[in-house]
């Protein structure tokens, strides 16, 4: 599948943003994070900024963005529509939570309840994003039991590493948050390795035989219907990443998992200014690594239409 940068950035940014929002909503509301003005402003601003930037980026890849409002109508059948509804609905409790924290300086009472609602809405939205990909039967690498948990794990992972960088930056970092980041990053790494292992051994029942209805023997593409690349090949016949798959997987693992782990573990041992710098670097490296991972998620996915082209 063609990895449109708008969609790669959208899923990475909103994943991290919703992860951070959910963690802030729970932790601040329950009193684990102090109701500090600047922390609230930067924290909720970062979370909602990532979410908004991602949503705007996704609207940018539409052919007719001025009609995007129509996408809220078909939530009965469409996961994309559900994602649209959930993402907008999340802004209501998230906005109340941010107003309570930043403007009123409190994270208890109704603000805490808004925080919990924001956390639930954020998780629901990430689930709807994952389900868009799970629901696509022609793409076996996405239509798998690994996809939805992957979206949730990576959202929690990137969100927690952002939260840690934030808390370390304000000098209120804790070893518990650091440990949580390390565990989630390990979980994310393990899940990605398991997903790749599963995909590499995938035996797809759909073949050139079933695609053409020609039973038995071998079906070889002799001639395409067209001499140039068409929409189908540009959108679904993307092949660059399969060529560089091994190298790109190494880059994704190094940036998204290995380097952040090393930096986070070092942050355990070092005093405040160093720990804060390392935590920030871990968040930046992981975000870059997740962009590569998400790029591969698209580029490695093989659509059944490529069978018609002998690819």
């Amino acid at each position, binding site marked *: 599948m063609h990895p449109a940068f708008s969609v790669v950035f959208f899923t990475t940014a909103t994943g991290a943003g919703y992860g951070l929002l959910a963690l802030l909503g729970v932790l601040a509301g329950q009193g684990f994070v102090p109701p500090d003005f600047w922390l609230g402003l930067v924290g909720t601003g970062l979370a909602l900024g990532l979410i908004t930037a991602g949503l705007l980026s996704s609207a940018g890849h539409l*052919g007719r963005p001025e009609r995007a409002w129509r*996408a809220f109508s078909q939530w009965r059948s469409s996961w994309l529509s559900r994602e649209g509804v959930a993402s907008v609905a999340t802004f209501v409790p998230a906005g109340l939570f941010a107003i309570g924290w930043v403007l009123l300086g409190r994270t208890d009472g109704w603000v805490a309840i808004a925080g919990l609602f924001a956390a639930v809405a954020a998780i629901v939205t990430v689930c709807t994003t994952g389900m868009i990909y799970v629901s696509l039967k022609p793409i076996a690498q996405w239509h798998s039991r690994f996809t939805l948990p992957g979206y949730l794990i990576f959202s929690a992972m990137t969100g927690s590493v952002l939260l840690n960088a934030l808390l370390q930056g304000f000098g209120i970092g804790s070893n518990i948050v650091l440990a949580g980041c390390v565990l989630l990053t390990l979980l994310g790494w393990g899940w990605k390795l398991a997903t790749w292992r599963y995909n590499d051994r995938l035996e797809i029942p759909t073949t*050139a035989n*079933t695609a053409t209805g*020609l039973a038995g023997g071998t079906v070889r593409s002799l001639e395409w219907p067209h001499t140039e690349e068409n929409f189908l090949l540009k959108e679904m016949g993307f092949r660059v990443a399969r060529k560089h798959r091994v190298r790109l997987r190494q880059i994704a693992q190094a940036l998204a998992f290995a380097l952040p782990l090393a930096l986070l573990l070092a942050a355990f041992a070092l005093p405040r200014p160093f720990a804060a710098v390392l935590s920030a670097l871990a968040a930046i490296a992981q975000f870059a690594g997740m962009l590569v991972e998400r790029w591969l998620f698209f580029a490695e996915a093989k659509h059944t239409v490529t069978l018609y082209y002998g690819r």
Partner: protein
Amino acid sequence: MTCIPAQTDKKLGLVIDLDTCVGCQACVTACKEWNTGGHMAPLTDIDPYGGDVDGVWFNRVHSYEHITEMGGRTVNFPRSCLHCEQPACVTVCPTGASYKRASDGIVLVDEDKCIGCKLCSWACPYGAREFDTDVGVMKKCTLCVDRIYNDNLVGEDRVPACVAACPTSARHFGDLGDPASAVSQLVASRGGVDLMPELGYQPTNKYLPPRAHTTRAASVPAPALEPVRAEGGFLGWVDRMLSN
């Protein structure tokens, strides 16, 4: 509304005979000609006379080599929307632009509602939908909905343009929901098949596999020509001269 109707009154669709299709592309050009002025017009061409041609087509004919233990053959394979009974392209549509008609089962796109998110093209395993980058909306086969009900055409022309154009009668149009219809009978008698049945889209269009090889034809190709034996004399001299 992108929920699929529980059942449709008719199941209009095509039956495509892979035995008689000669790959002449007449259906392709007839489709393009009709539909670039039809319901989903235009079928935009990008840089049509340049070096980087692209454009929207509803019907594309591939050629395959099918080799079995019975021998090999070339199979020409027209590929277009199959108007599935379980069209995931419709259910994934976030705007309601894609829909399946309850009256005849035809899957259509309302171009005025389409936002061009392309998700429907990802959901179609057959590559039936093509995005018009110029207009910014998705386009697809309409089963010539503006021909088959068109009172301004004489009766025999009220069929999809691809069917009307086919010189070998490899394309048939009719109600596949009616077991007594000519197309249903044809499918039953020739063992028509679904494409990618394992994905569960339940396509309405059926494909008739090529007929089995017969024993009347030579079972092996003619033997290769034997090498010419070296000769002496005048002919040998000519052979040597021509071989130089």
